[in-house]
């Protein structure tokens, strides 16, 4: 269940900082600008935690806290003071009324999260409900390697993705990066000085914000002992050099739990398009096949009955591609969907050479395929008698 946190502060700035700090967690933030509003929201929402300022107009934090603690329905709600009032005597006096913790401003967001997590268990947002992230969504990737050529190779190899590759050269820079923003995935070189990758792994796993962030180790293919040690230490995956970027991309997408179907399937002008990308590997073909039935079913469910199977971008025909197309055509027939095939001249010629594919009709462009499907749909439409 989502946690509820109420921030009571007359400063909109503090309320925005609180909202920002908890953004990555599965919780709802409620706001109040003074004690009176705070008590009203607390009574209505029964939050799991209240963050309370002291110096506020209308009703200050001390009076608000006293009223909360004297209300049988509200007195059990844990309160954490978040205030610039921090003299020792003052803190002791307020602690006696009953607070779970006390943060004196200025404060770091990490401190706030850490202390809140000791009172209510916070869950990162990825564990909660919401739309699954797709391969087409942006992601922040942090690469920690003191060799700029490696960072550049990863950046170049993944430039077709919407992911931003942030390169840093040391464990300290990486920690500084993570203090500013939570990366979606980290790749760290095991060759960093003084076991920097392992030290950074510990930092990542002990920080509440990053403890679930996937972290890959990067090591030379022949260093098997180092690979074994990295797996034991808890790296999610070990990437070996020389890097197979296509495989790395697929591993990264899986580690980030991304919905991969967007790479192969789009809905274009009310029809489903299955398009194999230029650099499609066997793993990619398998991935496309895994989503096939669900995507066709979604299309039919949405009221459409046309599909285009486009292999025009790939360079050579192989058994995997042929099997996928056969599977797709069979599924379309079962669902009474119209479909058309698109390929380039070379692939069309290759198809003529195989018994199973010789009779297939291809179009050379998506537009031609769409036009043909349009004609077929018009023919299939029932003709109404004129009145």
């Amino acid at each position, binding site marked *: 269940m989502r946690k509820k946190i109420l921030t009571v502060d007359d400063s909109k*700035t503090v309320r925005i900082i609180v909202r920002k700090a908890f953004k990555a967690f599965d919780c709802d933030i409620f706001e109040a600008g003074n004690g009176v509003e705070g008590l009203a929201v607390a009574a209505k929402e029964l939050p799991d935690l209240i963050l309370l300022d002291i110096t506020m107009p209308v009703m200050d934090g001390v009076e608000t806290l006293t009223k909360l603690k004297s209300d049988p329905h509200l007195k059990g709600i844990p309160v954490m003071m978040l205030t610039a009032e921090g003299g020792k*005597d003052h803190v002791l006096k307020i602690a006696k009324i009953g607070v779970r913790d006390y943060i004196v401003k200025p404060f770091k967001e990490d401190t706030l999260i850490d202390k809140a997590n000791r009172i209510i268990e916070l869950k990162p947002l990825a564990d909660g409900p919401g739309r699954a992230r797709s391969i087409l969504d942006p992601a922040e990737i942090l690469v920690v390697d003191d060799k700029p050529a490696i960072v550049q190779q990863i950046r170049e190899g993944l430039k077709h993705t919407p992911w931003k590759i942030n390169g840093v050269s040391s464990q300290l820079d990486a920690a500084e990066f993570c203090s500013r923003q939570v990366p979606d995935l980290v790749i760290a070189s095991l060759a960093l000085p003084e076991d920097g990758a392992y030290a950074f792994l510990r930092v990542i796993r002990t920080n509440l914000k990053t403890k679930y962030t996937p972290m890959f180790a990067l090591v030379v293919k022949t260093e098997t002992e180092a690979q074994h040690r990295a797996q034991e230490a808890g790296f999610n995956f070990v990437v070996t050099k020389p890097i197979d970027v296509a495989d790395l991309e697929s591993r990264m997408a899986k580690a980030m739990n991304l919905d991969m179907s967007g790479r192969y399937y789009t809905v274009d002008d009310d029809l489903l398009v299955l398009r194999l990308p230029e650099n499609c590997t066997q793993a990619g073909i398998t991935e496309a096949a895994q989503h096939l039935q669900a995507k066709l079913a979604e299309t039919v469910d949405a009221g459409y009955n046309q599909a285009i199977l486009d292999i025009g971008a790939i360079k050579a025909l192989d058994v995997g591609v042929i099997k996928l197309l056969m599977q797709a055509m069979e599924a379309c027939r079962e669902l009474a969907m119209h479909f058309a095939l698109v390929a380039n001249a070379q692939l069309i010629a290759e198809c003529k050479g195989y018994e199973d594919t010789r009779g297939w009709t291809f179009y050379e462009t998506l537009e031609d395929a769409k036009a043909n499907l349009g004609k077929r749909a018009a023919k299939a439409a029932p003709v109404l008698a004129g009145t």
Partner: protein
Amino acid sequence: MPAAAEISECLIRENISRAVADVFKTMMGRSAILSVAHAAERGEAPGTSVDQVIGTVGFIGDLNGLVYLYLDEGFANQCTGQILGLNAFELAAAGAEVVNDAIGELTNMVVGSFKNALCDAGYPCKLTIPSILRARNFCIQSTRRAEHRSYRFTCGSHRLVADIIIKSGD
């Protein structure tokens, strides 16, 4: 308990210097370094001729006082953007009210840290609610019974001034 006149300039300087540095470091990751400290002269305008955003927070108790924090408008906007994680376009869309609130809170934190150190030194007092002034060539003048001191800080290429008026409680 010593009276306000007996509070050493050293205590005030150290506390305000630590408070400004701590708040800027924690909230924005920036270094603010004390460059000039002096007794404020009558009629002296600590601000510059460009538009300024001036945050004010008082403290009342065994010591009474007011702290004015002067920031050039451009610097105030930059600080607000950093504190709230807004870029220049988002900040422009948010408007001056957001900057006022952020500088008010920044001043509240600075004066809170300053005042808490005074509390721990044996001068219990409480904070007042922040307010904001927008002006050019703005200067404050104190009554004869109050200490008035001015502290200039540099923060990168920017300058900010903490003007402090302080007197013992009645």
